[in-house]
């Protein structure tokens, strides 16, 4: 029911109040809505970010706690909750990756296994991280890991093979380029998703949803890999 939150203004009784009453302008108690609904947007991924920013500023000028210092405790509380919702929603929706991840979560997908936390948890507990290497990267990652291992050993011995470092640096650059390219691919998925929302079937949506999940997993895999490479390159002898 995006954009459909209706109730009665607590102050003047007028119907169809949203963040504030359309009749008397009073801030309203926050209603649990998703971030898209908060801005009155459909669950689509192509968003006009400059327009979102304008809306964010406009709502900030009405909801921010600074404007309620003299109001009663109830209104202060609501303004605090409403403006934190506004900030959370804006922060999530303005960023292409966070926006996609958020939408996927709304669609019931757990994206945890590739997360940084899972990586760190695995590192600390000594368990192998349950992370699936994307098949098209398998060979490359295998080579890279061998070279990283070699560099680690060299560094421990206080040696430094410039050609090895150069080779690893070159591969890192390639990974970064791949990482970048995935964003363009993701944006193509967005358009398909938005079309499926307008006129597609449930099956269409599920298909695109899964493609996006796959893409985000590949992307975070690449990001972690680049991070690991940086760690080894930057670590002291």
């Amino acid at each position, binding site marked *: 029911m995006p954009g459909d939150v209706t109730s009665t203004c607590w102050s003047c009784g007028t119907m169809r109040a949203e963040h504030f009453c359309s009749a008397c302008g009073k801030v309203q108690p926050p209603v649990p809505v998703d971030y898209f609904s908060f801005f009155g947007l459909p669950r689509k991924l192509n968003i006009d970010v400059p327009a979102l920013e304008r809306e964010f*500023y406009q709502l*900030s*000028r009405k909801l*921010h*706690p*600074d404007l309620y*210092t*003299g109001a009663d405790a109830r209104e202060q509380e609501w303004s*605090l*909750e409403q*403006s*934190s*919702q506004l*900030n*959370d929603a*804006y*922060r999530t929706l303005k960023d292409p990756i966070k926006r996609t991840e958020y939408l996927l979560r709304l669609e019931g997908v757990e994206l945890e296994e590739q997360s*940084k*936390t899972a990586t*760190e*948890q695995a590192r*600390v*507990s000594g368990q192998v991280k349950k992370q699936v290497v994307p098949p098209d990267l398998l060979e490359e990652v295998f080579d890279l890991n061998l070279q990283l291992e070699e560099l680690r050993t060299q560094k421990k011995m206080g040696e430094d093979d410039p050609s090895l470092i150069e080779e690893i640096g070159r591969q890192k650059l390639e990974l970064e380029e791949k990482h970048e390219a995935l964003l363009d691919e993701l944006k193509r998925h967005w358009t398909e998703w938005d079309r499926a929302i307008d006129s597609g079937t449930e099956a269409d949506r599920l298909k695109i949803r899964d493609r996006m999940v796959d893409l985000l997993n590949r992307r975070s895999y690449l990001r972690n890999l680049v991070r690991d490479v940086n760690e080894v390159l930057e670590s002291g002898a």
Partner: protein
Amino acid sequence: MINERIVGIDLGTTNSLVAFMHGDTPAVIPGEDGLNLVPSVVALDEHDQIIVGSGARKYLIDTPERAIYSVKRLMGRGVEDVQEELKLFPFRLAEDLQAGEVLRIKLGDKTYTPPEISAFILRQLKRNAERFFGGPVTKAVITVPAYFNDAQRQATKDAGRIAGLDVLRLVNEPTAASLAYGLDKKKNGIVAVYDLGGGTFDISILKLHDGIFEVIATNGDTHLGGDDIDNLLITIALDDIRGDLGFDLRRSGEGVQTIRKAVIEAKIALSAQNSTKLDIDLPGGKRYQREITRELFETLVQPILDRTVAPCKQALKDAGLKPEQIDEVVLVGGSTRIPKVRALVEGLFKRTPHTDLNPDEVVALGAAVQANILAGGSEATKEMLLLDVTPLSLGIEVAGGVTDKIILRNSTIPASATQFYTTQVDGQANVAIHVLQGERELAKDCRSLARFDLKGVPPMTAGMPRIEVKFLIDANGILHVSAREQRSGKEAEIEVQPSYGLTDEQVESMLLESFDYAEEDFRQRQVIEARNEAETILTALDRGRSSPAWGQLTSEEQWRIAKLEKSLGDVKKGEDYQAIRKAIDDLNHATMHLAELIMDSALSTALKGKTMDQADLGEGPAAPHPVAKADFE
């Protein structure tokens, strides 16, 4: 409600200021001494009265064990955090401190927590403002370093409460400065604020958009500032003195403070001159002299200044900006007067920084602007709105001692995050949550904010309860937590164990103590003043007795005076200032005739050839009224 009197306060490491919005321009409120800056120095005088500001400075040298400066460095910190500080600053902590306990600092034989000492400074500022307005001031906006964590912010808010101030908002110092700068320049663009103060460094990058001041990224170091430069110079001087003169002054509080005063003067001089001289009188009649060139000074302080570079680069990176995209750079804090600092900032941002506002005052002025916005705004501020960020990520400790970040740094505040918890054991009634702040991956490397105990979870099989915990960072950058068990809809009770901070009850009791102090201060002042006056009247009476006029009194008058003199002498030993006052009045009254007689004799002396001007009216037995001082016009 509109234009309620809300002041803006810059509670600084070295100096503090109070400002207000005077029409359309913010202005600093001077103290009784006419100066805008109140040194953040607190001392306990010989009568155990608290002295704040310039008056407290002399105690730093005379009785260093009864004075404290730079207490801001200790706000919101535990004993294990301040070991480095203790090597460099003459802080005297109470001996019985436990790890995790709020610090207590010794002043003379009393101990105070850092929020209480800050409260003494705030109370002085409050008094200055009250004298200026001629009425009470109870509401304030107080600035804090942008990089202050939750505990440091909470400690600042506690200090305000202890001082009897309703702290309506904590504003980040660099952001406040941008408000002061932005007031008359209604421009859009990206601004970087470089704030190097006495003890803290902040860098903030803001986007200005039609009156909205949106912070995009902030970074800093809450233990980096002019103090560090002073300490470096002090160490060098101490080493020199030990080497050349064979004096080890490191343990002498007085010696170190004398050197500190001299190096600060030298540091300031070197911002304007190419060379200056340290010339310090040492105990035992020796002197330490040394020439310092600006070149040498710059080489010495370079490592300290370099520590500001990484935070600047990180802030740019977080903001997703290149130095060339910064439109304006603003300098804040006394340490930015150093030419080398200006050169460093110019190099970093490829811009000549703005320095048109006094770097010592700009933060307080900005706080006054924010106070005006909160009071309902005026013509000058009606379009202005500040959107600040949280400087540090907020996390929860999860299995394996790992930090799970739930609100990332540089998130616009207020910001919130919701987490779901469940139980591990059947019928488990409590769930413990450990909240952390910081960027590191492991919980042990982050700052522990608090431990929460969710209590009264309804008895269910393990894993069944679904406890929703909401973390909310308010517009002051302070964390609030609430919890609800979803299956039963029951509000879970939360018990907060702040890792470094005062509990509400402690703050309340300090608040009461501070009221007691206010009364105690007043009473003590009255006693001291009354005693001084009694002393004056008794001395004058002694002189009167030796004048010829004494002999003209009746013996009954003489007897009466002697009786009252004795009772004043007795009562002035006590603490009852009202009784002392009454005894003074009685004695005054009884000596009225004596005073008249002395006056007459003075006049007749004058008529014998002297003019009134030449007649010695102020001294000795010839004074017109040797007893009652009120007779002088």
